[in-house]
């Protein structure tokens, strides 16, 4: 039945069919986009940017993506110095960085919101604590009490209301001082005050989560997308007294107090079209597929209105 001669013929036929199908796709009819995309950016966003890069390479095989993840401050410096045209950052450019950029190029950098993220306050998974106010958080983490707390809190039984958690003092864990996470937590949760000196510092968010997950007396802060079942994220009690859990919905709407935007800065003069590879990258990020990748990487997609603003 099966004649060996027919096999090569079948393969050729299959290849021909495949080739025809390939020719039928619109991507091939347009001129192929090629080039290397270089980006220097935040290490919080590294995994996200790499996933976008993979999806981009699947759409346009001619594009290769190179990412140097050094932190948001490095990204801003590289954008100003002109060593990169794309800077994914986990915080907006500071006024000084923006001025330096404008002074050098004569136009402002183009700012795109690309995703939502949040900081979460975590405790050990068996800890009965469910929600916390900003005053309490400040009294735990700061030495300045800038949010109006009365006295520093050092022990689990000193929490208002007292918590039945017999593990003595609260062991605090957080990020290193140069990270954007450290700075954002200082601005939003400590009302711009200063951290206590005895907080254990870790160079990465996963390390904070791992440390909190292995010690019942621990509390720490970290990025939302690093959450694991080892720890539980606390709800934050806002000024109206509502406890707000960090869920994709509250982070997207900004109801959760420690939510933030993630940005992509592009060095592009107004009025001139973007190079095709960069254009394709931004189109991908703001497409449904790109926002699905945001969700898959553990971040929160932009709300529809914000997406429209970025698309324009």
């Amino acid at each position, binding site marked *: 039945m099966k004649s060996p001669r027919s096999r090569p013929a079948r393969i050729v036929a299959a290849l021909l069919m495949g080739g025809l199908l390939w020719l039928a796709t619109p991507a091939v009819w347009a001129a192929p986009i090629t080039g290397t995309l270089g980006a220097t950016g935040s290490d919080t966003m590294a995994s996200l940017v790499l996933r976008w890069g993979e999806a981009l390479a699947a759409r346009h095989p001619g594009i290769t993506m190179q990412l140097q993840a050094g932190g948001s401050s490095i990204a801003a410096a590289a954008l100003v110095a002109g060593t990169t045209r794309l800077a994914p950052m986990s915080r907006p450019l500071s006024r000084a960085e923006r001025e330096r950029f404008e002074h050098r190029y004569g136009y402002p950098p183009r700012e795109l919101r690309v995703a939502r993220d949040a900081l979460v306050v975590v405790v050990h998974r068996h800890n009965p604590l469910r929600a916390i106010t900003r005053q309490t958080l400040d009294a735990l983490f700061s030495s300045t009490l800038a949010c109006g707390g009365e006295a520093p809190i050092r022990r689990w039984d000193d929490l208002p209301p007292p918590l039945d958690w017999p593990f003595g003092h609260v062991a605090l864990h957080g990020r290193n001082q140069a990270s954007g996470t450290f700075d954002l937590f200082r601005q939003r949760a400590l009302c711009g005050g200063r951290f206590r*000196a005895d907080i254990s510092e870790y160079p990465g968010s996963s390390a904070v989560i791992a*440390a909190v997950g292995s010690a019942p007396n621990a509390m720490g802060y970290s990025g939302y997308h690093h959450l694991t079942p080892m720890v539980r994220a606390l709800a934050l009690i806002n000024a109206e007294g509502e406890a707000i859990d960090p869920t994709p919905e509250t982070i997207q709407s900004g109801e959760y107090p420690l939510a933030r935007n993630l940005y992509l800065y592009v060095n592009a003069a107004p009025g001139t079209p973007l190079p095709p590879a960069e254009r394709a990258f931004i189109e991908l990020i703001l497409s449904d597929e790109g926002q699905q990748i945001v969700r898959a990487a553990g971040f929160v997609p932009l709300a529809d209105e914000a997406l429209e603003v970025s698309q324009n």
Partner: protein
Amino acid sequence: MADASLAYRYPLAPFYDVVMTPPSPAPSSLRTLKDRIATGLITAAGIGVLLAILAIGVFLVWETLPLLTHFDTLSLEKLSPLAWGTLKAAIAALVLAVPVALGAAIFSALFMTDRLRARIKPSLELMEAVPGVVIGFVAGLVLAPWVERHLASTLALLLWLPLSAGLAGILWHLAPKALRRALSLESAGLWLLPWIAATAALVLWAAPILEQQWLGSDLATFLDRRFGIDYTTRNTLIVGLAMGFAIIPSVYSLAEDALYDIPKPLMEGAQALGASRWQALWKVALPMAGPGIFSAVMIGAGRAVGETMIVLMASSNAALMSASPFEGLRSFSAAIAIELPEAPPDSQTYHLLILAALVLFLFTFLVNTLAEVVRQRLRRRYQRLGGA
């Protein structure tokens, strides 16, 4: 021929298969040319290394200059906990490592048989090949949580291990002659192992029980409730244990060399005049090799101050000024490793970190130079006394 080449072999044949080349006959002109080229290259490389070190120093000084214009109390406030953390980590490591390393060096240089020594010394020196990041990883992720749960057992072990060795010595003296001959002092390192393992197991079994009986809870909780002493998971004790482990080989190796190279006639003379081995050790060997032991400890201190990954991973990196061994610390090198990649260039933080690097560079440079000078002088002293 085979015999002749064997005679040139280094005594530690199984580990170092070094064969010295016999002197060649009349040197040809090609050979002198080759020699000259080699000498030139080596000199150039040496000068290059010196220039590189100088360039690092100049770069660090240059980058800290902007600080001079606005050096304020805030900078000092930021730097002093780091300096203290560095010092505290180094002291903890030395306290744990120096007794072990010196004891091992004295035993293997003066009491062990040469055959055993030829096996033990290279294996101890192999410990130095364990990368710091591996030690730090194990200390931070395995040792630190274990010690937190078994604090009493750990402290009891630290106290008990030296005591149990002393106890073994007393028991040995009381033992009958036949037993003493079977367990010779030269191979004490071998028969002590099961003894130490057994007593350590006893402590590990007894400590939690006694802890519950006497304190009613584990020691960390007790310290917190009774005295308000904080216990941080990754603390100075953990750093000391991990970094002590890392510097034992270099301290041991250098101290052992200093002790082993003592001219033999000196020790033999002392014993011929009626000194016991113990007396010869205290009155002759230790004073003679003192500078060498000092330089070994200095090298260990230099390594402990400069060590990065162990401190980074085994400590909490909290910039504290506390003296408690149960609280964390933050060292210069760890601060540089964590913060420098994210510090924007030309910011205050950046210049402060560079200043920290400069301090570190100067300190290790001075300590190493001092140790090397002392060692050279000791070698000359040995040569004058007719040693190796």
